[in-house]
């Protein structure tokens, strides 16, 4: 995978962004390692409207996609795991521990970040904010943290834009800055809410490169994903969700036409190599 903007990455940036991590493609994992994410009996509702009903899912290490129709509760699931949306019932374990013990150690890429683009911050400032939990409350950002942020920016091919105010970047560049911010969090578990929604080709390439490098470094990524045609290309595991779990497992086992059709409540029509989903009118 070529990095965006024609930069040739040597991988040195990755090691700088993730000091002390094994970047070999198949890192040895002790058998006892708890799963990156285990959810049991999760119920979430907005007022009277149920969003998630009795969701039980254990994510395997590696890259997982959450797939389902609009309103299936995919984003809600991520937000509940992060504690941003309160759950009525259920248990969430992150690397074997509850959120209270893991707070601040989960990577997060929100859906097309709804921030004030006029905020007085450069691209580097935004990425460096990922390091806020590591520093004291006041004073200048320590050099090591700024360098980590710079390395993360280089990872997504945005090194040349480090000093640009964020409002003066294109949409795709802004998204890559937020991707770099997620990288700079240096978390073992990264949650992404539709990272591929409405991105340009360079940004899509950057995201795919980041996903692969995170997986190679032994990190786990769970991403809400909309594009059914790329699930098998980008992810190892899949969770098919429509308010409750329809199917889960490796892409090979769980991502079948029948399961997808059951998830979307419609029929999957096949035209040779193309599959078209006939969604029933709501």
């Amino acid at each position: 995978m070529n990095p965006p903007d024609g930069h040739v990455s040597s991988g040195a940036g990755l090691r700088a962004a993730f000091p002390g991590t094994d970047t070999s493609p198949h890192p040895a994992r002790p058998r006892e390692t708890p799963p990156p994410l285990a959810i049991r009996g999760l119920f979430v509702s907005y007022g009277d409207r149920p969003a998630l009903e009795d969701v039980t899912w254990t994510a395997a290490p590696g890259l997982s996609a959450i797939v389902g129709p609009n309103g299936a509760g995919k984003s809600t699931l991520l937000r509940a795991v992060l504690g941003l949306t309160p759950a009525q019932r259920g248990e969430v374990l992150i690397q074997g521990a509850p959120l209270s013990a893991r707070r601040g150690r989960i990577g997060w890429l929100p859906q097309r970040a709804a921030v004030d683009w006029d905020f007085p911050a450069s691209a580097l400032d935004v990425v460096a904010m990922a390091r806020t939990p590591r520093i004291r409350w006041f004073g200048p950002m320590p050099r090591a943290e700024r360098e980590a942020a710079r390395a993360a920016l280089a990872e997504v091919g945005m090194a040349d834009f480090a000093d640009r105010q964020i409002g003066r970047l294109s949409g795709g560049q802004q998204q890559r800055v937020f991707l770099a911010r997620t990288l700079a969090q240096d978390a073992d578990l990264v949650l992404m809410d539709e990272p591929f929604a409405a991105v340009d080709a360079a940004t899509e390439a950057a995201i795919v490169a980041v996903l692969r490098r995170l997986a190679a470094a032994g990190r786990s990524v769970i991403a809400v994903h909309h594009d059914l045609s790329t699930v098998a290309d980008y992810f190892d595991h899949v969770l098919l969700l429509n308010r409750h779990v329809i199917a889960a497992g490796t892409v090979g086992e769980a991502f079948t036409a029948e399961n997808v059709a059951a998830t979307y409540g419609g029929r999957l029509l096949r035209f040779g190599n193309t599959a078209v989903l006939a969604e029933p009118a709501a």
Partner: protein
Amino acid sequence: MTLTYNTLVVLLGCGLLGLAAGTVGCFALLRGRALVADAVGHAALPGVALGALFAAALGLETRALPPLLAGAAATGVLGVLAVQMLARTRRLREDAAIAVVLSTFYAAGVALLSFVQTVPQAAQAGLSHFILGQAAALRAADAMLAGLVALGCVAGCLALYHPLRAACFDPQFAQVQGLRLGLVDLALLGLMVVVCVSGLQAVGLVLMVALLVLPPAAARLWAARLPGMLLLSGLGGAVAGLAGAAASALWPTLPTGAAVVLAGALLLGLSMLMGPEAPAAIVRRRRATP
């Protein structure tokens, strides 16, 4: 004008007050809390009146500031709580809730003031100065206290720089990072209340919000990053505070609040025309590089 010791201290106090308002205002503006500052100011009026009545009832010196400012802080906080409660019912949006609370508290304050005028001891407190501000009527000790409190607010902002910035830029991400957003917001609100209350006498409760909003708005037109904006906003606030106090000292009939706000507005106007981050400059740059 002769520069007496009193005048000098008052000028210094107003300058420090502007510095604090500019610094706290930076974060208030970036967190989208400018109107909350307005609510705090207006909601302080009934507290001032109640403080004067309380002091009169206890037979304290009626011009003593502490009971007045304590009352102002109390009802100011009450006003903010009322806004949050109204907004939480989801029958009123926050902007409407602020409008309701601001006018209701102010009306209650005006009604209480008319009652205060009938109480001889309390009537001497000169409460009308609190509405539009009258720095010339400030005593040196009061100005010094306001200045010191203002310096404390600046120190508070700097001590909480990284949490405040994180909460202002992307509150949800900050929460995911483990930041106690509620506490950070509470700290910001506390700083805003303290700045508003310490500026009541000099700038007046109606116009205090301008000193919190104008300097950072002008500073953003010169600086593209937060440290620069913070510095310029503090400086701009100090200049506006000094200029307002000086004008009020020269023309005793001119309310300080009005002079301070006009000075701040002038800064914003000039920044709109000349600031490198202003819309006009961006259009010029776009024309220069087709």
